[in-house]
């Protein structure tokens, strides 16, 4: 995400990155021209990664809403992995902004069906369904997402090994921004 942020700034786009940090450090203005907002998890004790992520997403929502309401122009939310999907979906609902999703790997490939796999897979599917564009690392992933989640092919973009191509991302942001913000529309009807 850091390399993408740098490339986007170079291409004259304003970028705010919201990410986790164990201690709240406030907003950092990077010399490359983008801003990093580090948030903490207000709940210190968790029983698993899903409860941790769900609570953290509420803080993502709060900070992102404040940033986006203070900003002008077209806006796109770029969520990285299932861990950020809840906030991206909520921001789409409340601010009517599209979001794009990057999936570096899929739960079905990572896990052999642990107790949290169902919840993580649900969030992954939710993200794919709600996102205007989904960036994937390879064609295998694209095939799985299309076949398992029924996502329309024109919403899937394969970026081999996530090799950086800012232009490619920007083109897709523009497609996402120009699309009507619909709920759960990126799915093939069966």
């Amino acid at each position: 995400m850091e390399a993408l942020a740098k490339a986007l700034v170079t291409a004259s786009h304003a970028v705010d990155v919201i990410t986790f940090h164990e201690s709240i450090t406030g907003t950092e203005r990077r010399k490359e021209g983008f801003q990093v907002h580090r948030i903490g998890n207000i709940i210190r004790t968790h029983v698993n990664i899903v409860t941790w992520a769900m609570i953290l997403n509420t803080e993502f929502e709060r900070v992102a809403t404040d940033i986006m309401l203070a900003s002008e122009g077209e806006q796109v939310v770029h969520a990285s992995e299932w861990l950020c999907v809840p906030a991206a979906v909520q921001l789409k609902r409340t601010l009517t902004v599209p979001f794009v999703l990057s999936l570096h790997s899929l739960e079905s490939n990572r896990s052999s069906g642990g107790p949290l796999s169902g919840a993580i897979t649900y969030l992954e599917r939710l993200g794919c369904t709600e996102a205007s564009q989904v960036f994937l690392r390879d064609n295998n992933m694209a095939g799985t997402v299309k076949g398992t989640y029924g996502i329309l092919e024109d919403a899937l973009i394969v970026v081999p090994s996530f090799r950086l191509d800012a232009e490619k991302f920007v083109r897709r942001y523009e497609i996402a921004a120009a699309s009507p913000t619909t709920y759960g529309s990126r799915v093939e009807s069966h």
Partner: protein
Amino acid sequence: MLSWEYPPRIVGGIARHVYGLSRGLAKLGVDVSVFTCEFPGAPREEKLDGVRIFRVDSYKAPTPNLATWDLMMNQSMEEFAAEILSSNSGDPVLLHAHEWLVAKAAIGLKHTLRLPMMATIHATEAGRRYVLHDDNERMIDQIEYWLTFEAWRIICCSRYMTRQVSAQFSLPADKTITIPNGVDVSDFVGTFNKRNFRREFASPAEKIVLFVGRLVYEKGAGVLLEAIPRVLQKVNCKVIIGSEGYMKEELLAKAKRLGIDQHVVFTGYIDETTLRRLYRVADACAFPSLYEPFGIVALEAMAAKAPVVVSDVGGFSEIVNDGVNGVKAIPNDAESLAASIIRVLDDPAYAENLRANAAKIVQDQYSWNQIAVLTKIIYEEVLEAYLKGSWRMPQRRSWHATGT
């Protein structure tokens, strides 16, 4: 309002509370929408007694425990409520969360829609558990703190709970307010054949002592069983233990060990109609809780004109005036409890006086209309403060989204 339970989904006391309060507020002209979990056979959307009810699919993903399920459910509730609230015509909206179980959705909606949010804390995890034993309980405790931190005002149902919540979460005094639970007296009228109904549970020679409450440690059913041998020395009675809980097997064994199993009936879950009738044929209702944030069962019994015997704890201490509208017993003291039950069963005139006083106090102080009036005042205070400030969704953001 956000609540994980609403009739017909009834898990504990929150469903009845939200039901009574929402209807009471609607009667006062407040436009109330309740977001809650789905229930088999209940419509996803309906309007009842002026209250709009939205039921959310809460089982979209398999989860390994209650806390994970709850946060996933909150995601669905937050998404759905955002869609509904985003189409709001522009009237001021206030969010009212009931318990930690809807904290994530309430706080998320507060920030993403920039709406004022307040919460009712019905009980705390620390109060329920005495000691926070594991990460699950510690997490719930911290979510409760988070909710009280984010809410503009906190309602508790008793002064006892207000003190506990304020101390535990270090809340400023002007953030909390005590508004009691309510009860609908009209639920406890109507005719039925009391003699025949009573025979289903006890012989004519036996007095009925009714216990209602989850069979968990803090509700004190074990203390009641320990008191019964003493009561039986004075008065022939049948104890009816309503509902279920993890202690049921232990209590069954205890009744047998005490030699009173012929005098105790474990009914399992009781439907609303049967429960209300049981209150009305009971000669005494015994609620020997060790921890009781409010004690809605005492109000229900009083509304049904049943004499109540309660332990002198928490909300019970505030509802019952000893010897006036009920009798108090020393908490976790079987001898004291037995003496109080005998006093009620053995003195019909005394019991009759308790019944009459209790019914009047319930009518005067605990009607849902009265509770709704007090709650509406707090709503108005919060909305007034909100509207004076500038923290809200800018006009340029048209709250429009296309649903499919």
